[in-house]
C-alpha cells in the first residue's frame, strides 16, 4: 500500500502526517486527529453527516481522500463554537428552534449552514433556498422544520411574505 506525506490545516492548525492513499478525509480527521465531531453515516456521500468545509466550501469528507486535502484548509465542527465554548449563533439557533434531536447529523448541518451564511452575506434568504441548501443533509429525527426556522432566524431575512413559500 502506498503512503503519502501530507500537510493539512485543520481548524487553523497545521498537521503533517504520513497516510495511506486510500484513507478518506473523514477517517483522517476522526482517527488521526481525534476530531470525532465529524460523523460518518453512509460513506457513500449521500447523508451529509460528514460535511466539512475545505477551503471554505462544503465537502463530503467521506468522499474525499486525505491526500486530496493536502495543502488545503479544512474546518470541522470543533472550530465553530468560540474557544470559551460559547455557541456560534447558528448553533444557538438550532437549539432554540429544536433543530436537532439525536445530534448525529447536526455537525454536518451546522457546517452546511455556516457555508450558507458566509455565501449569502447580506442577501436575504428565502425558506425555499434554505431548504435547498439543507437538502444534502439527511436527518431522520426532526423533519427539518427546526433547522429551517433556525436558519431563518440567523440568516438575513427575506421580505415578509417570502417566508412561508416552500
Amino acid at each position: 500500500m502506498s503512503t503519502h506525506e501530507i500537510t493539512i490545516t485543520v481548524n487553523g492548525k497545521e498537521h503533517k502526517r504520513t497516510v495511506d492513499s486510500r484513507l478518506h478525509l473523514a477517517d483522517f480527521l476522526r482517527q488521526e486527529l481525534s476530531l470525532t465531531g465529524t460523523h460518518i453515516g453512509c460513506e457513500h456521500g449521500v447523508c451529509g453527516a460528514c460535511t466539512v468545509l475545505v477551503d471554505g466550501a462544503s465537502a463530503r469528507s467521506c468522499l474525499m481522500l486525505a491526500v486530496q486535502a493536502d495543502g488545503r484548509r479544512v474546518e470541522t465542527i470543533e472550530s465553530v463554537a468560540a474557544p470559551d465554548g460559547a455557541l456560534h449563533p447558528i448553533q444557538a439557533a438550532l437549539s432554540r428552534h429544536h433543530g436537532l434531536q439525536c445530534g448525529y447529523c447536526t455537525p454536518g448541518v451546522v457546517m452546511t449552514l455556516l457555508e450558507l451564511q458566509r455565501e449569502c452575506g447580506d442577501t436575504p434568504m428565502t425558506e425555499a433556498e434554505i431548504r435547498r441548501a439543507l437538502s444534502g443533509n439527511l436527518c431522520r429525527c426532526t423533519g427539518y422544520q427546526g433547522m429551517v426556522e433556525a436558519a431563518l432566524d440567523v440568516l438575513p431575512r427575506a421580505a415578509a411574505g417570502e417566508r412561508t413559500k416552500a
Partner: protein
Amino acid sequence: MSGKSLGTASLSPERSGELIGSSVPRVEDTRLLRGEARFIDDIVLPDMLHAVFARSRSAHARIKGVDTAAAKAVPGVHAVLLYADLRPLLTCDRIPLALAAAAVKFDAEPVCLVNDEACYVGEPIALVVADNRRIAEDAAALIEVDYDELPVVTDPHDGLLPGAPRARLDCPDNLTAEHVVKYGDVDRIFGTAAHTFSEQFRMEKGGGFSIEPRGIIARYDAVEDLLTVWNGTQTPHRAKTVMVQTLGLAEHQLRVIAPDVGGGFGPKAVFHPEEIAIPAAALLLRRPIKWFEDRLESFTATVQERRQIWNVEVAFDAAGKLGGIRGRIYHDHGANVPYGVALPYNGITNMIGPYVLPALHLTASLCLTNMVPVAPTRGAGRPQGTFVMERMLDRIARTLDLTRDEVRRRNLIPPEQMPYATPIKQRDGSVMTYDSGDYPQCQRRALAAADWNGFEERRVAALREGRLLGIGLANYVEGTGRGPFESTAIRIGASGQIFVTSGATAQGQGTKTMLAQLAASVFGVSPDRVHVTDGDTAATPLGLGAFASRQAVTAGNAAYLAAQSVAEKAKAVASVMLEVAPEDLELKDGEIRVAGVPKLKKSLAEVARALGGLPGFALPGNMDPGLAAAVDYQPMGMTYTNGTHIAEAEVNPISGAVKIHRYTVVHDCGRMINPMMVEGQVRGGVVHGIGMTLFELMRFDDSGQPLTGTLADYLLPTADVVPRIDIHHMESPSPLNPLGVKGAAESGTIGAPSVVISAIEDALRPLELRITELPILPARLRALIRTAQKAAKHA
C-alpha cells in the same frame, strides 16, 4: 414503591410550578452542537481491534464450507471466527429471544453466526478481527463460502400455499404464528348490511434508517472480571439479560452502556446477532473489539418492517356507519423472529382507531421468508392498520356520496363514552380501553385549522394554473406507554447535586431533558442543575428502555414520584434540623425554607449530609439514611394518544411526482411536559410517514437479493421535499397516571401515509383512482394514472 396505588392522584399545581408544560431548552444540545458527543464510533479504547462480518450472499443456502485461509493470512488480521469458534463460549445454540405469545406455533430464533443454513442475504457467517477496519474489510472479501443453494420464499402469501418451499429447513413450515382477533356477530352483520365491498392492500418493506448505524464495542477486563459492552441500543437492560443468558455470565460480570445514540426508530430496540458475536469475540481474544455497521449492512442485516397484504371486506349501512370488517392478513416476518410477533396484532387493534366498529374478524398469518428479519419500526404495525381503515372510510364516503369528514364524524367514538372500552381483549387478557380524548373535537379543530371548507377555492385556483391539488384527512389513535414498568431513582449527595438515574434510554427524544424537567419542577431548580444518567445497567439495575412511545409515561412518572418522595423527606429532615413544623416549610431554588423567614433554611446539600450519617450519631428524626428514592413505576394500562392529520398535495400527472404543500396536525397526547419536544417528535414522525408513503422502498428480487443498498436508492425525505407541519394541541390528561401524560413519539408516522394517499386520490378525483398500496413512488403513480386514464377513455 409501586406507582399503581397512586395512579389517579392529581398533580398539585403549586408543586409543578410552571416548569411542566414549558418548552425549556434541552440539556442535551450543547455537547451535540459542539461535536463533543460520544457515539459508539467516537469511543477509542487502548488495544482496541476492529471487526467486520462476512455475510451470506445467498438468500437461502446450505453452507457446505467456509475457506478462511486467505483472510487469516492478511497481515494485521488477528482472527477469523466461525460459529464453531464461538459456540464453546455460548450456553445455547441460538440467541434466546422468543417472547411468550399464544399465537406462536414455533420459534425461529437467530444465531450469532450461521452454522449450516443461511436464511437471508446479510446473515453473518464469519467475523474478521484486525488492527483496523480497512484491513478487516480486505480480509473479509477473501473469505470463500461454498453455498448449496436452496429454494427461497419471498412472498408472505405464496409462502403459505401448499407445496411452498420452506424458508428455514429447521421449521416444519413457514407459518410461524397466527393471530385471530374476533368480536361481534360478523356473519350476521355482513348478511344484513346495506353495503359491502372488499379490497386488497399491500404495504412494502421499509425501515428505521437512523443516521447513525448500529455499533458495539466489547471489552473484557480480567482484573475486574467485567465485560463492558457499549451498545448503540434502545434497550440496554434487555441486551444485558440476553447476553447474561447466552454467554453464561453472572450479572456482576456484565455492564451494558448505551452512550450517545444517533436515532433509534425501532430497529435498535431489537437484539441482533452482532450483540453476541462481538462480546464473545472480545472474551475469546481478550482484546477490546469495535464493530460499527456499514451502511450496506443497515440495509441487509438490520431488521425492517411494514410488508403486509390485507384482504379485507367491510360492511356498512346506508348512513355510512361501519358494521363489520373481516378478512385475512399475510405478514412477512423475514427469516427469523427476533422480537416476538406483535406487529400484525398491533395493525389489527390499531385499525379500529377512533371509530365505533361493532364487529371484527381478522386472521393474521405470519410467514417466514428469506428476507431480512422483521421487527418494529416507528409505528410498529399501526400505520398499516390505520391505512386500511382510512382508505376504506374514503371509499365508503365515495360510495355513498358523503364528504370524507362527514363519514368519519358519523363513526367517531363520542367523547361522553370516554373512557371507552373497545371490544378487543388484549394479549394480557385486559380490555383495550381508550383512557381519554375527544375525537370529534380533534377532527373539528383540524378541519378549522386547515381551512378544510375553503379548500375548493384553492383547488379551483390551482386548476386554473393547470395544477392538480387535493386534500386528505385521517384520524388515528396510538397505544403508548407500554408497561410493565420503568425504573427511575433520584439521589442527592453531599454536593447537593440532583442525580437522576433511569432505565429509560435515549436516542434523541430528549429523555434527559424530560426527566430533568420533572425532577427540577419538584425541587424548584433549573433543569440544567439536574444530572441524568440513562441507558446504563450499572446505574440502574432494572429497566426496559425505549419502545412503544413509553418513556414519558413510565420513566417520567417514576421520576416525578421519586422526586416527590425525596422532597418530602428533605422537608421532614429540615423540619427537625430547623425545629419548625414541616407544613411551614417550602422547597424553592433547591433549598428548604421557612415560609416568610428567608434566613431560616437548609440546602439540599446540608440535608443530604445530615442523612449521610456520622459514626455513632443517630440520623435526624430517626429517618432512614440517604436523601434518595427509587420508583419502579407500573402503568395501570396503555395511554391512548390520538390525532387528526390534514394534508394538501399537488400531483404532477405526467411525472407522478407528489408535492405536499400544507400539513396540519391536531394532536392530543394528554398533558405535555415539554411542548417543543412533543412537536419535534410529531414532526419527525410525520416526515417518517411521508417517507414511507412517497419515497422509501426496499426492493428485493425473486431470489431474495436486496436491490436497495444505499441511501441513494432508498430515499429518506430531504428538507426540500417535506412541507411545514403546523401542529395544534389538545390536552386530555390521562386518568391513568399522576402526570396525566401519554406518549408522542410514533403517532406522526401512524397518520401520515393515510392522509397523503387521501390527498393524492382527491387531486385525481376525476379519474376515480383508488390507491391501496404503500409506498407510491412516482413511476408507480404514473402507471396507475395511465391505467385509469385508459379506463376512463373506454368507459
